[in-house]
């Protein structure tokens, strides 16, 4: 077992209204497994992902990463977990704009003080077909290329799980497919678990398991 959510609940408050987004939700993601979480817009997919990655904290419930409960970790401890065990892929790519493609991929390795980060990053970028774009800045890359850099960055530290939030949401169909192929290829190659949040049923079917998020619970 790599990632486990136990009875997690999360509500958002809008003015006077309380919107219960997640309600006693449970989830198990095993090592190397790929899980797709699908649901309508506003169903709470991204909220779930932000809780799993420790970017937000649940109102109640527990999230375990291996034998470590991350729910009550402080920000420094969470940063360590994210740096060592998680890779996150965002819909909006979220590359550091002032770093080149190569430096963006080097960054997670340098956070962990790995030697030869440059060599490893070059290899990763070659794996996603961007060896010719190493010194380009994010704003000099197309959307697809930026997402491939984001994938390389997420995979760089060889995490135990990749959390991907609508990774093709900003890409055209063809590029989206290409990007997903890469994600699946790399996660399989590295035995990395994948939690894919998407509203695309076709994409979800490529995962080993598909869960529907509805009324705050996974079905």
């Amino acid at each position, binding site marked *: 077992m790599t990632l486990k959510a136990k009875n997690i609940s999360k509500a958002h408050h809008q003015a006077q209204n309380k919107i219960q987004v997640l309600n006693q939700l449970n989830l198990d993601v095993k090592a190397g497994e790929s899980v797709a979480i699908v649901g309508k817009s506003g169903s709470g997919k991204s909220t779930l992902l932000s809780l799993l990655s420790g*970017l*937000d904290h649940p109102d109640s419930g527990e999230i375990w990463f291996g034998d470590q409960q991350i729910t009550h970790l402080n920000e420094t401890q969470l*940063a360590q977990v994210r740096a060592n065990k998680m890779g996150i892929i965002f819909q909006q790519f979220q590359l550091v704009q002032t770093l080149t493609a190569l430096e963006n991929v080097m960054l997670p390795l340098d956070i962990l003080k790995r030697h030869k980060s440059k*060599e490893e990053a070059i290899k990763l970028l070659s794996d996603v077909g961007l060896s010719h774009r190493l010194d380009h800045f994010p704003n000099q890359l197309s959307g697809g290329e930026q997402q491939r850099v984001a994938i390389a960055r997420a995979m760089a530290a060889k995490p135990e799980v990749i959390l991907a939030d609508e990774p093709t949401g900003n890409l055209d169909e063809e590029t989206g497919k290409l990007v997903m192929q890469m994600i699946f290829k790399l996660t399989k190659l590295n035995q990395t678990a994948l939690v894919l949040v998407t509203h695309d049923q076709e994409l979800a079917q490529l995962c080993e398991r598909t869960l529907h998020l509805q009324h705050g619970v996974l079905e």
Partner: protein
Amino acid sequence: MKKLSWLKRDLQRFRTTYFLVFFTLVLGLSGIFIIEQLKSALLFSLKSQEKELLSSDMAMSARRPLSENELKRFHEKLNPSASYRILDMSSMLYNPKKDESRLVELRVIELGFPFYGSLDNANGPIDLSENSDFFTTEDCLLVHVDTMRSLELNQGQYLRLGEKNFRFCDVVLKDSSLGFRAFALAPRIYLSRKNLEGTGLFGEGSIASHSMHLKTNKTIEELEVIQKELQAEFSDPTLRINLPSDTSEQVARAGNVFSDYLQLISLVSFILSVVGTFYLFRGLIGQRLKDAAILRALGLGPISVQFILLIGLFFIFLLSIPSAYLTSLIVTPALLSGIKTVFGLELNLIKVSWRIWSSLPLVSLFLFSAIMPVIRESVKIPVIVLIQSQTSKQRAGIFDYWPWNLLAFLSLWSLAIWASQSWKVGSLFIFSLSLALIIFTCIFYLAKNFLISILNSQVSLQSPFGLELGIVLRRLIRQPLTTLISIISLGLGAMLLSLLFHIEKSVNQEFTIESDSKPSLFLFDIQDEQVEKLKSFFSEQKIEVQALSPMIRGKLMRINESQYKADDDSTTRFRTREEENDSRFRQRMMNLSWAEGFNSSETLVSGQHFGESVKLESDETAISVEKRFASRLGLKLSDRLEFDVLGVPVIGRVVNIRSVKWTSFRPNFFITFAPGALEEAPKSWLAAIGSLNETERVSIQNKIQKLFSNISVVDITQLVERLSGLFARLKIALEMMAYFTILVGFVVVLSMTYHQLQKREAEMMLEKTLGISPYRVIKMLSFELLSVGIVAFGVGGICGALLANSISVFLLEGNAVWELTQLFYLVLAGLILVLLPVGVLIPKVLNTRPAGLLQRP
């Protein structure tokens, strides 16, 4: 209506930034209002001192009776609310008790005297009203304490003046009209005009100084114009039209120095807030570029988009003006009350002059012309670039929109001239700012290229500076325009702060009077043949003689080959302060002197001391010229000057320029000859004696009177104390204003830094998401601000010091002050200041979870 609702939404959405802009503007503008009011109050206080010396708003005087026509024209021009005449003459005063007579200065006054100031006895102002003893009794005579001491008189005793006996009815301990002019310093007795009758002292052919003093509501500027007009109307050179500012060199000099420094402080405060506001305006526009792009994509025309971008700023600007004014109305009275309580300096609240309001169109012009390139850019960059970009795409360079930039530059220049009221100071200021801007840009690009060559060759982000600094440096050099604008904005702030620190130091240096060097007695009318005897007397009495100088009246006739032209510009045209100062110097006959070298209050500025080998023609003598005087008359080393000394030409060549510490209160001369040329000219001597206590002063006065009866001895301790006390209090007030402006500057810098951090919030969250611990994020923020701060405050501090000294030396004729320790503290304070917002953000960085990145559209 739609646009107004857009404004409402805009204000809500960017409320923090709008608040910062509003806060900076209110702070800056209220700072300007407050400083202008303080400045007016301080100058008014100084002018009051000058008025007390003259005792009226304007006086006309001559060593002859004033003609009816002169008096008529004087009254017509001034339309006075009150007037009185004063007659000053020398007279023998007979003391029957000792059976001896002494020459004294008799001041004959009329009801109403003085309009300003007072004659004080031990209990305060002496009653000089219509029903007072002085005006109702036939034999009342007031005697100044110096005269009382030198003649060993007792209050109540009878004295004979001319053919009439008088009762010494009161002692004048303080006469506010006693200044540092030789005549004004003479021991006095006071008599009413009515009581003069019967003395037989005043008749046809009597030599006396007749003056008419008027009180009027006219402003100083109006009076200056009237003074010029009257001087032009009456060609008689013996007729003097005096304003309060003509009465005391020290107070006038204090007024000039204060005015200069106050204008500088005002200028700095002004430019600081304008630069700060520009920075925040620009940041706000940058934040809203994506919105602008979306509006364009939805079909809104470029003019409407620009209007929407500007309307919020315009609204905030308009709102800040009354807010700043209201703030100043609350703060200024409290500040004046504080100054009075703490320093005992009473300042009157003066309402904000129209001058301040007249600057607002220029401020608006500057701000909006400086912002327009960014606004214009927002409608030129392709919509898709703005929408897809995650950062603001501001590419507007200085040359892309040069007409707007030129307009901004010209309006800032005009503002600087306006604020300093001097095109020289304003221009030097703007020139220095521009130069600093170029220096900042050059340093930044040099550092950038150097860092690029290092960073690009590294095998990891960690080497060679560590991960945090590595990322920070990459960010800084890869957003050159943003970084450069931050450095320039903070750097200019630092430069202005450094300028203020140096101004404060200069003020301190200029106005500090060493207590052991203050003179106690002035002696004048010393005749040639008395000099040696007097020296022996001083030696016997073990008296410290601070100065013993000959004084010769001379008229400057030629400078090199040109005829010297005294100022005869009597037109009423507007004159800058520089022109006014020039004019004051060019109207004077000169007191010349000779000396073998400098006294302790003089310092060599350039050239050589007397006695060092200097090439001179056979008819020339070496001369030394005071720095300010040389500057006003355009005199330089090696210039040949020709004087007329009672019809005899005397020629000198300038061999050195010297500065004189004018607060030394010692006799000093604009022109000093080396020994050899003036010895034979008719002259008198004057001396200054220092470090005497009250008993010693009385004793020495009496001894000198006995041994040298013609020599006038005046105790100037009280006057020196009065003036040095005034300077000390004004210095403190001025320093307070400088510190107040420094505080304003620090707050402006703080809000600029805070705004910079606000823009970095999203990136901080991304860094945390990627697994960078909050402490490392804080470290990165600190490194980023420190890198910018070190360059900005380091270079800015040095530039400020250079500017301060340039202004001080070249324009204000002061001395250079290099305060390296203070500069170090400024940089340190600056760095702490730029780090403060990081401290504010620490809890946020530590505790906020970056979930927003996943929900970000």
